[in-house]
């Protein structure tokens, strides 16, 4: 299977992972939307891949490829049609503990009746963190996303990019063990975007959190990820699991001008172009879907 070869490819640098080191395991995941009164949509045909604990993996794919569908299945918000999502050895049947999700519809994921501070505080309250410590975590998270002055404002008083940063601050203050992000930087300006990318890298390094990062930006995927999972067009299968063999220390200037960065970027770009044209690897047909 292609995944094993990809993993063994990286084994030259990192020692081969023991099985218990797997945080997230997708086993033959298939998802067909079957909304009554609407035609069926086969969003994901077959996905099989693993993410090790503490890994940062990016997912790219053409629009409508089922990236959000994939993320929501992992988050336990959507039932898969076939196969299973296994997190820390347990099949996901509902939202798992210790997971934070930054939704693509960031603006609509913030509670408009709460201030920015209250939005970040609510999940911390649920965790039973004492008040003083909560405030400290909130202040730190807001500082990370440079939103300290907006703490007492309501989300709808902020710009789109600021709202997106609030959603990110809420996720990082939560200190999850798995962080799922769905195109989290789509609405921020280039400068903030670069800062937030570095923030994700540094948080990931310091907290040891497992990150699955969906993006449509190829440069971003290569810059951030240790691996880039490229999806085909719908119904989705894995195009390629690209290992990013760039040094662990990355910065916007040197990494992006690295020759290897350019090669990887070109490779992923090529894959996406092929995916858009409908060029796709053969994958197991879903049961009973004969043509």
């Amino acid at each position, binding site marked *: 299977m292609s995944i094993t070869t990809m993993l063994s490819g990286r084994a030259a640098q990192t020692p081969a992972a023991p099985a218990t080191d797997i945080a997230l395991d997708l086993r033959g995941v298939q998802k067909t939307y079957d909304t009554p009164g609407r035609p069926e949509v086969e969003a994901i045909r077959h996905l099989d891949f693993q993410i090790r604990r503490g890994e940062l993996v990016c997912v790219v794919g053409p629009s409508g490829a089922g990236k959000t569908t994939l993320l*929501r299945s992992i988050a*336990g918000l959507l039932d898969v049609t076939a196969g299973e999502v296994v997190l820390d050895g347990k099949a996901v049947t509902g939202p798992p503990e210790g997971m*934070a999700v930054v939704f693509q519809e960031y603006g*609509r994921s913030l509670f408009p*009746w709460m201030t920015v501070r209250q939005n970040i505080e609510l*999940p911390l309250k649920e965790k039973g963190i004492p008040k003083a410590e909560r405030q400290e975590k909130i202040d730190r998270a807001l500082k990370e996303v440079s939103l300290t002055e907006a703490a007492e404002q309501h989300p*709808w008083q902020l710009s789109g990019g600021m709202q997106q940063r609030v959603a990110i601050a809420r996720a990082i203050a939560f200190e999850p063990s798995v962080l799922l992000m769905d195109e989290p930087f789509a609405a921020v300006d280039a400068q903030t975007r670069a800062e937030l990318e570095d923030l994700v890298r540094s948080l990931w390094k310091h907290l040891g959190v497992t990150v699955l990062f969906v993006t449509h930006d190829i440069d971003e995927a290569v810059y951030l990820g240790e691996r880039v999972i490229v999806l085909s067009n719908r119904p989705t299968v894995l195009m390629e699991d690209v290992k990013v063999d760039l040094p662990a220390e990355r910065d916007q200037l040197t990494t992006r001008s690295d020759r290897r960065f350019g090669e990887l970027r070109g490779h992923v770009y090529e894959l996406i172009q092929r995916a858009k044209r409908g060029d796709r690897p053969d994958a197991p047909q879903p049961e009973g879907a004969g043509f």
Partner: protein
Amino acid sequence: MTTLLKRAFMLLGLPIILVAAWWFASAGSTSPFWPPLSTILEAFPTTWTMDRIVGDVFPSLARLGIGFALAVLVGIVAGTAIGLSPTLRALAEPVLEFFRAVPPPVLVPIIALFAGYTGWLGKIVTIALGCLWPILLNTVEGVRGLEPVLGDTAKSYQLSRWRRLLFVVLPGASPRIFTGARQALSIGVILMVISELFGANRGLGAAIVQFQRSFAIPQMWTGIILLGLIGVLLAAIFKVVENRMLAWYVGQRQIERGV
């Protein structure tokens, strides 16, 4: 300053014009049923003495308050339950549609049969039942209409049932709940009066009927004016509470509309 004047004029302009029109139109009236406004206003202080206010107005308002509060409580609790549970909704929908179609005043004689004509119970039940439906139905819609991404956010952060209810579901439904409560309040005022028309010896509605029956026509008119003033006052109090609790909603709407 000029904007303040303008607002005061907008607020009071039409009432002043209408009162003036009434004043002049009725000035020379000799019809016993249509006394001059000046006569009505003269009768006002002697009619609504402290004694009457305590004995008639307060009991009526107390019944309205209790009935309305009960309706709010039951309406929000039941409405939230129905809104959250598809099974409950499927069961309750036909019943709700039926009761919604029944005009509330029709309830008065029926309830009076069971709870008596003169006591407080029948009147409170009448008011509460009449107020219940708009609150209940609006709460159901408000709960169902919650932004799905907010629901997903609450779920993925593992918020407990109670936190989800108190911090997500109810605030999300609150604009609709207020819409229902506003409709309920006007229905409540109507039922407060109607519930006293059939049989009651004390109360604002009962007093108006007694004036009419004893041909104390100017006094009857003062009762109607008082009723109107109470309606305005209640609406103003409601507005203050709404503006406080829905400040986020008003602000959000204004920004969306680009004000």
